[in-house]
C-alpha cells in the first residue's frame, strides 16, 4: 500500500485553523471508519449535528416534554414556548415578516408537497408550472402529480450543459400567461450551481407568477433573506443545517398562506369541529395537523443559533474555498469529467471517471474512511440529459478542512491505481 494511505503512517501536524477547532463540537467526526479517520464528505445528503443540538434535544426530553398548544399544565406551557420559540427563530433566520409565515413540515419534500396540494388547489387544466432541468426529484415529482390531477402542463428552463448554468435568456419565452408558478432550486445538489434567486423571482413577480425556492442546499450555507430574495415560498430541511431529521420549514407569504385551503386534517389545524363541517385554525397552524416534531424544532433552534454564531457568510466562503481546492486538483486527474460551474460554485463537486464507475469509486473510498455519494443524486432527468448514469459527489461543510480535500484527491488517485487505470 501507498505509505500516504496507510493509517499507521504518522501525519505532519498541520497548523490548526479556527475551522478545525469547530470539529470538536461534532462528536461523530472523531472516529475511524475501516481503520482510517472518518472524512465525511456527504453533507449535501445530510449534515452532522453539533453537541449544542444534541444537548438541546436531550434537555427538552428531560425537562420540558409535553404536547403543545392545548395543555394548561406547566410542562405543556414550556413545550409550547419552546416550539413557538423555534418558529420565531426560523422567521429571524429567514428574515420573514412574522412567525405566522413559518410552517413546520417533515422536510423540504413535504413542504413542496404542501404547496403543490394546498396552493395547487387553484390550478386548472391548461395552466403551466415552470421548473428547471436541475430540480431534485422532490421539486419535480410533486408538480408532476399536480399536473396529473389538474391537467396542467410542466415546462422546464433548460440547463446549459456540464457547466451547470440556466438558460435564463429563455425565461421570456417560457414565462407566458399560462404559467402560474415557477419553482426552482437555490443551489443544485448535483451541479453545485448557485442560481440567481432574486433575479429569477423578480422576473416572475413582474408577470404575476408565484415563486417557490428549494433552499435545501442553501439554507445552512448562506444567508437567506426572503424579503430581499422576493420569493413567495421557500423550503428547507433541518437535517441539512445541523438540526435533526424529520423536520422541515415552509416559508410562505402571508397572503398566499391565508388564501390556501388546508392539506391535511386532524388536531391543531382546526378552530371548531362539528360532525359534518369544521372551521380552520389561523396560519400557520392551519397547515400543521397532529402533534408536531417538537423536539425537532428545539434541535433546529439550537442549530440555527450555532450557525449564526459562526456566520453563514463565513460558512459559504469556507465552502467555496474547499470546493475550489477540490475542483482544481480533481481537474488534473486523467479521464475525469467535472460537472457544474468552474467558479462561484457552492461547496460540492460532482465528478465522473470514464473508466471507473461511481459505485466502485464510492465503495473503495469508503474503505479509506472517505464518505462520498454515488448515483443519480435524485436528478435522473438531468443526468440523462448530460448523458450520464451516475456520478460520485463530494460535498463539504464548515467542519471539513483543506486537509480532507487533499485526502480525497489522494484516495481517488489510489482508486485509479487499484482499478489499473491511468492516473
Amino acid at each position: 500500500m501507498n505509505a500516504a494511505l496507510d493509517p499507521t503512517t504518522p501525519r505532519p501536524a498541520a497548523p490548526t485553523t479556527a475551522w478545525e477547532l469547530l470539529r470538536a463540537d461534532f462528536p461523530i467526526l472523531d472516529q475511524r471508519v475501516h481503520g482510517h479517520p472518518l472524512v465525511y464528505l456527504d453533507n449535501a445528503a445530510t449534515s452532522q449535528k453539533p453537541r449544542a443540538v444534541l444537548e438541546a434535544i436531550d434537555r427538552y426530553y428531560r425537562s420540558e416534554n409535553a404536547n403543545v398548544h392545548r395543555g394548561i399544565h406547566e410542562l405543556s406551557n414550556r413545550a409550547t414556548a419552546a416550539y413557538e420559540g423555534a418558529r420565531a427563530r426560523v422567521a429571524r433566520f429567514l428574515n420573514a415578516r412574522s412567525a405566522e409565515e413559518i410552517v413546520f413540515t417533515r422536510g423540504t419534500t413535504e413542504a413542496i408537497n404542501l404547496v403543490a396540494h394546498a396552493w395547487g388547489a387553484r390550478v386548472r387544466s391548461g395552466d403551466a408550472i415552470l421548473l428547471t432541468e436541475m430540480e431534485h426529484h422532490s421539486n419535480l415529482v410533486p408538480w408532476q402529480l399536480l399536473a396529473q390531477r389538474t391537467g396542467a402542463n410542466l415546462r422546464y428552463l433548460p440547463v446549459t450543459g456540464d457547466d451547470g448554468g440556466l438558460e435564463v435568456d429563455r425565461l421570456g419565452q417560457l414565462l407566458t400567461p399560462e404559467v402560474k408558478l415557477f419553482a426552482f432550486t437555490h443551489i443544485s445538489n448535483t451541479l453545485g450551481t448557485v442560481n440567481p434567486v432574486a433575479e429569477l423571482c423578480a422576473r416572475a413577480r413582474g408577470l404575476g407568477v408565484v415563486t417557490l425556492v428549494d433552499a435545501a442546499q442553501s439554507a445552512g450555507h448562506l444567508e437567506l433573506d426572503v424579503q430581499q430574495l422576493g420569493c413567495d415560498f421557500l423550503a428547507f430541511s433541518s437535517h441539512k443545517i445541523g438540526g435533526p431529521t424529520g423536520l422541515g420549514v415552509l416559508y410562505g407569504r402571508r397572503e398566499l398562506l391565508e388564501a390556501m385551503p388546508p392539506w391535511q386534517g386532524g388536531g391543531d389545524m382546526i378552530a371548531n369541529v362539528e360532525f359534518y363541517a369544521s372551521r380552520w385554525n389561523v396560519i400557520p397552524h392551519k397547515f400543521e395537523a397532529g402533534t408536531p416534531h417538537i423536539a425537532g424544532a428545539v434541535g433546529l433552534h439550537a442549530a440555527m443559533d450555532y450557525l449564526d454564531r459562526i456566520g453563514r457568510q463565513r460558512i459559504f466562503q469556507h465552502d467555496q474555498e474547499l470546493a475550489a481546492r477540490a475542483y482544481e486538483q480533481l481537474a488534473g486527474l486523467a479521464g475525469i469529467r467535472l460537472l457544474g460551474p468552474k467558479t462561484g460554485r457552492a461547496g460540492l463537486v460532482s465528478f465522473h471517471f470514464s473508466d471507473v464507475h461511481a459505485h466502485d469509486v464510492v465503495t473503495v473510498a469508503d474503505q479509506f474512511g472517505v464518505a462520498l455519494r454515488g448515483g443519480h443524486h435524485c436528478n435522473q432527468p438531468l443526468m440523462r440529459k448530460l448523458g450520464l448514469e451516475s456520478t460520485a459527489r463530494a460535498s463539504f461543510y464548515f467542519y471539513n478542512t483543506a486537509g480532507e480535500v487533499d485526502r480525497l484527491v489522494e484516495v481517488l488517485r489510489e482508486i485509479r491505481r487499484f482499478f489499473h487505470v491511468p492516473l
Partner: protein
Amino acid sequence: MNDLSDLYQEVILDHSRSPRNYRPLEAPQRQAQGHNPLCGDQVTIYLAFEGDVIKDISFQGSGCAISKASASLLTESLKGRSTAEVKRLFDQIHALMTTGQSRGADLGKMAVFAGVHKFPARVKCAMLPWRAVVAALEDEGRAPTVSTE
C-alpha cells in the same frame, strides 16, 4: 484493505475490464433486461437453447465493475446448463452473495463473489444479471425487465 481485495478479486477486475460474451445474439430465443435505477446500471441477457439446455448466452449493458463481472462470469458458467440447473445455481449464488458461504456447492469461478456479502449496498449489483436471467427463463413472453428496486 482485505475486505476490498475480497470484493474486487483479480478475476472480477479482469472480467469487468474485458467482459466475455459481450455481444448480442443474432436470434435469441429468450432475453431479459436488468435495471438498477439507483445507479442506472443496465444489463441485457440473450439466450439460445437446444431443447432445455442453454446453447449460447451473451450480454450487453453498462454498469459498475461488480455487475459487469457478474454478468460476464454468469455467461461463462451457464453455457450447457439446463433451466432447472440455472434456477438451482441462482439460489446458491444468492446465498453466497448474501452470506459469503457456498454451503458445499461447487460454484467454480463464481465463488469469487463471496466477498460481496460484506458490502450490502453492492449485493444488488452482483445479483442484477442473475435476476435478469431467471426472469428470461420464467417469462414465456419476450424481453421482460427486472429492477433491483
